[in-house]
């Protein structure tokens, strides 16, 4: 399931709803991304998340579909917020549930890595020097490259 919205989400309620009633699930892995009050050496007072309505949902659905294609999953969830957020606020939740713990972990990790390099969101951080667009981190590309299948890497 994909949710793109401005409002905060209830982490416990979302995770509970994801697994509720499905007794084939043996493991639920989740990751929550939060706004930090520092970026490198700079203090962050707030950030604004811009996105591309329409394409955002499509990309997230593609990422979710690929995860479900790769691993035996019972349930998946991606929630991503946009708009103005403050330190400590929840930005994103990805979760994967499976009969098997390794599948839940790997799929959850895959979801956040791919989301970070594919989903059209951009962060503008409020710093003492004014608003600054966050640079892409090469470590995110490296994290995504890890998931490339051997037969696809050769393409």
């Amino acid at each position, binding site marked *: 399931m994909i949710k793109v919205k401005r409002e905060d989400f209830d982490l416990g309620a979302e995770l509970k709803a994801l697994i509720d009633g499905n007794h084939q699930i043996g493991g639920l892995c989740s990751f929550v991304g939060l706004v930090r009050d520092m970026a490198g050496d700079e203090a962050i007072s707030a950030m604004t*998340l811009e*996105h591309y309505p329409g*394409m955002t949902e499509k990309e997230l659905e593609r990422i979710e579909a690929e995860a479900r294609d790769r691993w035996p999953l019972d349930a998946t969830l991606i929630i991503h917020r946009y708009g103005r957020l403050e330190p400590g606020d929840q930005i994103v939740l990805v979760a994967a549930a499976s009969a098997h713990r390794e599948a839940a972990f790997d799929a959850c990790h895959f979801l956040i890595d791919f989301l970070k*390099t594919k989903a*059209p969101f*951009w*962060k*503008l951080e409020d710093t003492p020097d004014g608003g600054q667009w966050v640079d892409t981190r090469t470590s995110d590309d490296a994290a995504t490259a890890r998931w490339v299948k051997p037969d696809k890497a050769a393409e």
Partner: protein
Amino acid sequence: MKLLYFAWLREKTGVSEETADPPADVATVAGLLDWIEARGGGHAEAFADRRAVRVAVNQEYVSLDHPVAAGDEIAFFPPVTGG
């Protein structure tokens, strides 16, 4: 065609969305970028470093040699930084 600009590309061009009608010989994303840059000002500045620009045609990532046509929704944006 509909052109969309996000993040600092939006700020530099001063436009978030515009309808454009380039000449018929503009057939690819690269050709469209040449035409946009030729308009000068913020548009030229925004696209000075094309390696910093990602392009989606009809909400799918494409490369610079991808065809463009009337009716397409074409979006320009920096590398994404969500999550």
